[in-house]
């Protein structure tokens, strides 16, 4: 009893701040709502609210005569999405996303493997920074750099001419589906730039997955008579695979949602991002732009569900 009396005596002298913190401390739910309230409110209103507005908009339609948005529920806009011209855009975009993802995995793996297995701790720090710096530095400027490199009169054409492969380049550019007037105006160019800008997103998860492969497993495999190649195929690769899937989430999703690269380097054949941009802008057809956006959302949700099955989220 004396202890309580003593603490009551002290309490009288306590400052306002002290009393306030005791008041809050004794009410964890109050503290939680103070902490969680503002960010949650923001996310609910700004983000979820907008996503709902997006969904609602995709069920509106554009009046062809007045050019105004009719705010009435209809599936007309989704039917418009299924026309051959629009499906073409969807297929082109998904095809590019698949190609970029596969190429990124192939290009990223050796570097990630080297960083995870062979680099000294000091070198590892530097290499990590070397991958991180392009990822965070200006994405637009890096796209711009490729505009300089891929230009008809630019450094890549020049280099190719110097080693006498101009004819091969011309042959490549004459190919029907992927060619174009120059590298900076062709699907090949778009592919190279996508590969370049999203590559770090593939390297980091693969490296993280490889770092987690226990050294003892690799030693055990060797002790049991596996050659290094066998160990790599049968032990390392399966354990690193979730990392590849995790990286592919980024490369796939980012490629599908981008309009900067195709707008800067492409020709008149649109990608989903460009279609969304032009429908919401010049033509004022926000409902069709919204319906187009549902394509990458649905594909990504399915993709994420599959990725979770493959254990990619543990590798993030």
């Amino acid at each position, binding site marked *: 009893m004396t202890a309580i009396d003593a603490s009551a005596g002290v309490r009288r002298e306590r400052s306002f701040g002290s009393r306030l913190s005791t008041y809050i401390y004794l009410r964890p739910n109050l503290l939680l709502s103070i902490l969680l309230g503002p960010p949650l409110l923001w996310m609910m209103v700004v983000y979820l609210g907008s996503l709902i507005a997006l969904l609602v908009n995709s069920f509106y339609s554009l009046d062809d005569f007045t050019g105004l948005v009719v705010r009435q529920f209809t599936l007309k806009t989704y039917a418009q999405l299924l026309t051959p011209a629009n499906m073409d855009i969807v297929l082109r975009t998904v095809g590019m996303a698949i190609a970029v993802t596969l190429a990124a995995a192939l290009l990223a793996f050796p570097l990630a493997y080297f960083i995870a297995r062979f680099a000294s701790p000091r070198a590892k720090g530097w290499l990590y920074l070397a991958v991180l710096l392009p990822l965070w530095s200006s994405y*637009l400027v890096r796209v*711009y750099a490729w505009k300089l490199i891929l230009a008809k009169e630019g450094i890549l054409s020049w280099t190719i001419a110097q080693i006498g492969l101009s004819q091969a380049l011309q042959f490549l550019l004459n190919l029907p589906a992927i060619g174009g007037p120059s590298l900076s105006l062709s699907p090949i160019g778009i592919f190279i730039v996508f590969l370049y800008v999203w590559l770090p997103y593939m390297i980091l998860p693969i490296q993280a997955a490889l770092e987690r492969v226990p050294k003892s497993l690799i030693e055990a495999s060797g002790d049991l008579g596996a050659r290094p190649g066998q160990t790599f195929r049968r032990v390392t690769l399966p354990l690193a695979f979730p990392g590849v899937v995790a990286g592919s989430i980024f490369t796939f999703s980012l490629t599908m949602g981008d*309009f900067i690269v195709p707008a800067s380097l492409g020709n008149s054949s649109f990608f989903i991002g460009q279609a969304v941009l032009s429908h919401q802008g010049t033509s004022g057809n926000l409902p069709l732009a919204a319906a187009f956006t549902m394509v990458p959302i649905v594909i990504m949700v399915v993709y994420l569900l599959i990725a979770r099955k493959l254990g990619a989220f543990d590798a993030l």
Partner: protein
Amino acid sequence: MRFRISDPTAERASLPLKIAAAAALLFLHIPVWIILLYAFTTDEATYSFPPPGFTTRWFAVAFGRQDFWAALGLSLRVAGIATIAALLLGSLAAAAVYRSKFFGRETISVLLVLPLALPGIVTGIALRSAISIGEIPFSFWTIVLGHATFCMVVVYNNVLARLRRFGHSLIEASMDLGANGIQTFRYVVLPHLATALLAGGMLAFALSFDEVIVTTFTAGQQMTLPIWIFSQLTRPRDRPVTNVVAIFVILLTFIPILVAHRLTRDTGGTHL
């Protein structure tokens, strides 16, 4: 490590692996060097290589351009305010998710990272839809709204990662020693979080300063620096000026990233 233990099982990287790794690294870095080169070219009309000559006069031309300064000013103001909002909201959210287990915690932590997980165009067109339905006029604040939403995620990730390494026992010790909640926050929690907050803030700033996809949908006619660059990408008019602006932007984004990396290097690295 003072001495090297020779490990008979330790393999060395094979030559093809080294070449492939070096190729990927060069692929990541050479394009940035090329921009540096082009900022000094005398060529005005094309992107010709090798450059016909070298000059530094484009720097003066670029820095004399009013549209460049206006775009830069807008970008800096947006990034500044978005970063402050992101710091407040992101660290509150991180504290809530770290501190207590409540109903729907997993859902909320997924919701918080959604703006970075979904393609930027989704956030952009969603905000555009809300602006259209709510009949809100485009303004400085519509840009900030979008930026703060995805910048919050970066702060949240960095602060949450730091809190998880922190452990609850230090807070309990502080309370046992008689500090009240506010004192504990001021003298124990805040100093520990300081570098994570600074790193998260730096990254949020860099992210906002460079953002173009969401901004395209929320800016209306306003011109941030990335939108200015994007307009030059699709319809090149001022090639030499763009070359200078490009290296200016690269340098400006490198600094916060390097600082953020240095700040968090010993404590688990920066977080996306």
